[in-house]
C-alpha cells in the first residue's frame, strides 16, 4: 500500500461495469523530504472511502487486494483508495 495526495477527479460516463457508482481520483504519491516527485508517478485510483481532492490517502495498488476491498472477485481494478490518512510519523 502507498500514501498519496488526491490532486484531481476523473469523470467517465462510459466505463466498465466494475467502475460504475464509484469515483475515479488522480493520486500523486508522497515523497520523503529532499526527494523530488517524478512526473510519471501519478496514477488513477478507484475511490472506496469518500475521499476528495486534497485528502491524504492510503492506496492499495495490487489487484487481489483491490478485488477484496471491492468485494468483487472479478473486478478489473488495480488501485483502490482504502483509507484517508489522519497523521503520519516518520522516524528522523
Amino acid at each position, binding site marked *: 500500500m502507498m*500514501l*498519496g*495526495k488526491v*490532486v*484531481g*477527479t*476523473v*469523470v*467517465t*460516463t*462510459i*466505463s*466498465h461495469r*466494475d*467502475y460504475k457508482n464509484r469515483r*475515479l481520483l*488522480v493520486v*500523486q*504519491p*508522497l*515523497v*520523503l*523530504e529532499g*526527494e523530488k*516527485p517524478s*512526473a*510519471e508517478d*501519478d*496514477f*488513477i*485510483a*478507484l475511490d472506496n472511502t469518500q475521499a476528495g*481532492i*486534497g*485528502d*491524504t490517502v492510503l492506496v492499495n495498488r495490487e*489487484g487481489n487486494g*483491490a478485488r477484496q476491498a471491492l468485494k468483487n472477485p*472479478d*473486478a*478489473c*481494478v*488495480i*488501485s483502490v483508495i482504502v483509507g*484517508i*490518512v*489522519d*497523521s*503520519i*510519523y*516518520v*522516524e*528522523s
Partner: protein
Amino acid sequence: MLFGRVKGTAICTMKYQGTEGLKLLVVQPLNKKLEPIGILQVAADVVQAGVGDLCVMVRSREAALAMPDIKFVPIDLALVGIVDELEIRPDGKYDVTLRRGWSQFS
C-alpha cells in the same frame, strides 16, 4: 491505472483463441498533465473508444479481467473508461513531501 490517448487502430487477422472479436487500439500512455509517458502501446477496448479519445486504462492481469466473456486471455492493457471531464489541481497546490516526525493531515 493510467490515462491514455487513442492514436489509431491495430488489426490482426491471426489472434490467440479467446481474443477473437476484441478491438485493438494504439494508445499513448499519459501522466496527469496529459504528457506522454514512454512509447505507443496496444490496448484492448471494451468501451468502444475512438481515435482521439482520452481514456482510463488498466494494466496487467486486471486488463484480462476487463474482457467481456473469456477472462483467461493474453491481454495486458485494456481501456476501461472514456474521460468526459478531468479536473487536476496544479503541482504546487498540495504539498506531497513527507516530513520527518509527526504530520497531521486532518
